């Protein structure tokens, strides 16, 4: 059977398309990168166009389309939710019923109609939401057999599932169902602390080390009943998501001392402590769920997906606790990855194989699955727009960029295929020197224009990772948090600091990437996965002795990561990035013309 499958996720959050040939991931991209609308939920028309173009095919060459969730099953869950909430819940019903009674119930017809413009539409196969997550976690993993754990907010009914991945494919073993959801518990606290649901969860996780988990007990006693095997139920009296369009209300206010924090208002110790508390409870639940997954499958490796799998602090604890010999996290663990998982699941059912296992690595190609721009395309763009630039040979460019980084300059690094998933991994990154104590503040406030408390992540040469981090395994996708190695730490002196005061103290010889609890969200970089980025890290090590760089995504707050050379140049010019490496070309800010009439650009970018 021919086996070219186009996977789609759409109409909820972070739409995406992915193309899989005979079980091998060929391309994948989120729609937001093309439309420039963050977490764009629209049909991923441009991502589909990209996937087809990348392989030089048209829709008629595709054997099947895989959709990442079952709209009919989801509708039954939505209906059951109203049956559980009525007469409450009318506000939510009023807002969502017209959509459900209209196009949403016939989602697959909508998909077919949207695709029809691209040619004859192949058969559309549906996979359940967690089935897509599980497939995205297991099939591209480097393990022939594994336990698979998926944890998210909700798709259809399932919110937490355990699967067994073997040579025969995936088999589901257990599930927890809506409304009992670890993802929704975390999102409720995200909302209560004044951040946006479905995007502010990272911020809450980053905030947690500033606080103490003094609300942990009340969460365990009042909000979530956790059984020894990690299964749980929420106490829905304290949550509003069944009844309205918000996550929390009076129930949370009565437990946590008053109204929620208003977005963008100052953070107080309460938010630090709430973040620390829900993070601690989440880690406990994830730990127990993983132990149950091990007990049910008997496997020694674990694959993770679902939005909660982006909680790299919880992932790091799983690694530290050594419940499994090793874990592998799908880099697009959220809903975008559902497009990839659905395609992989359909491909597997049509005889697709896992050829990447022979090489010992995973099948994600370092998540570098998006568009690339040829050198002559970039050069044409630079010439057409009269942008001053110089061309370099690869090794000379790495040496030159490393020299600038070592001098404290911030560099935009745009190379090769764009990353799939929320993390920038060295293809669309902003880089800096992690030894510089002022780098975190400069990058947060003058480049990313984001909150000062947010930490930055390090990229490190894989071979040198153990010298800087107490990391028990590879972390190629920046999804495992690890302690900074003891030898790198600087003991805190002076009076005890709390809250954001903690930020002012250097904690290691790579302070810009050392969080206040001596942790770091590490990306280990291997030469075979990303030769260009590896070369740069090696050059920086040769220049400074340090094999680590600060790596943050190439965007400003509220904007999707850049995709094209033009977007990279625009971001470079709007921010305090000093140098831009666009493929083989280097651009120096000091040589660029002053842009005219672009002063109020930030007003066009919504707050995240």
């Amino acid at each position: 059977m021919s086996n070219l499958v186009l996977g789609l996720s759409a109409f909820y959050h972070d739409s995406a398309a992915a193309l899989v040939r005979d079980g091998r991931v060929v391309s994948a991209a989120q729609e937001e990168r093309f439309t420039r609308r963050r977490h764009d939920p629209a049909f991923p028309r441009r991502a589909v166009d990209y996937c087809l173009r990348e392989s030089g095919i048209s829709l008629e060459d595709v054997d099947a389309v895989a959709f990442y969730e079952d709209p009919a099953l989801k509708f039954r869950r939505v209906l059951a939710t109203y049956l559980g909430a009525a007469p409450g819940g009318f506000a939510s019903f009023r807002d969502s019923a017209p959509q459900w009674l209209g196009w949403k119930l016939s989602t697959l017809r909508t998909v077919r109609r949207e695709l029809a413009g691209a040619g004859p539409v192949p058969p559309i196969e549906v996979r359940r939401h967690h089935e897509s997550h599980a497939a995205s976690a297991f099939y591209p993993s480097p393990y022939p057999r594994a336990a698979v754990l998926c944890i998210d907010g909700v798709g259809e009914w399932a919110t937490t599932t355990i699967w067994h991945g073997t040579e025969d494919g995936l088999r589901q073993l257990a599930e927890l169902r809506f409304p009992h959801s670890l993802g929704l518990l975390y999102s409720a606290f995200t909302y209560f602390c004044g951040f946006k649901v479905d995007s502010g969860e990272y911020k809450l996780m980053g905030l947690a080390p500033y606080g103490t988990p003094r609300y942990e007990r009340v969460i365990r006693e009042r909000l979530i009943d956790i059984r020894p095997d990690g299964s749980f139920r929420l106490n829905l009296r304290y949550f509003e998501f069944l009844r309205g369009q918000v996550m929390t209300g009076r129930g949370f206010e009565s437990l946590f001392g008053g109204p929620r924090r208003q977005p963008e208002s100052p953070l107080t110790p309460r938010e630090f402590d709430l973040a620390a508390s829900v993070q601690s409870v989440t880690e406990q639940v994830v730990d127990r769920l993983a132990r149950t997954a091990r007990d049910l499958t008997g496997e020694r490796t674990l694959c993770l997906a679902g939005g909660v799998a982006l909680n790299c602090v919880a992932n790091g604890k799983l690694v530290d606790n050594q419940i499994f010999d090793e874990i592998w996290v799908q880099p697009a663990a959220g809903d975008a990855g559902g497009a990839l998982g659905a395609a992989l699941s359909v491909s597997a059912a049509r005889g697709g194989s896992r050829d990447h296992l022979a090489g010992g690595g995973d099948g994600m190609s370092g998540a570098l699955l998006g568009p690339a721009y040829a050198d002559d395309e970039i050069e044409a763009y630079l010439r057409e727009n009269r942008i001053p630039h110089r061309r370099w040979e690869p090794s000379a460019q790495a040496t030159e960029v490393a020299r600038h980084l070592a001098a404290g300059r911030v560099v935009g690094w745009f190379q090769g295929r764009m990353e799939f998933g929320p993390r920038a991994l060295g293809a669309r990154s902003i880089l800096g020197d992690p030894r510089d104590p002022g780098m975190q503040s400069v990058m947060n406030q003058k480049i990313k224009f984001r909150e000062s408390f947010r930490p930055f992540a390090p990229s490190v040469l894989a071979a040198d990772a153990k010298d800087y981090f107490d990391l028990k395994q590879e972390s190629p996708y920046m999804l495992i948090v690890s302690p900074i190695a003891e030898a790198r730490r600087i003991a805190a002196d002076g009076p005890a600091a709390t809250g954001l005061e903690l930020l002012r103290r250097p904690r290691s010889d790579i302070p810009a990437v050392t969080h206040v609890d001596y942790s770091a969200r590490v990306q280990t970089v291997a030469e075979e996965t990303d030769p260009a980025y590896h070369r740069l890290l090696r050059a920086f090590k040769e220049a400074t002795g340090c094999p680590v760089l600060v790596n943050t995504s190439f965007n400003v707050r509220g904007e999707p990561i850049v995709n094209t050379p033009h977007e990279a140049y625009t971001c470079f010019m709007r921010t305090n990035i000093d140098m831009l490496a666009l493929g083989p070309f280097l651009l120096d800010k000091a040589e660029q013309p002053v842009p005219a009439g672009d002063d109020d650009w930030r007003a066009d970018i919504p707050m995240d």
Partner: protein
Amino acid sequence: MRRMMLGVLYYLLLTPIALLIRSVRDPLHRRWDMNKATYWSLITASEDKSRTFAQRADNDC
């Protein structure tokens, strides 16, 4: 007008059905049960190996 129609649908049709169903069982299984060892719904092996969909042994609630 649409809001009124939706209100009628919600309060006069859906709500009575909801109250009736909830008098028998909660469709959302909200109650905490301290006597239960687990809240997991276990899934038995599927006869259809071409899909990972499984037959459900609904031991929940």
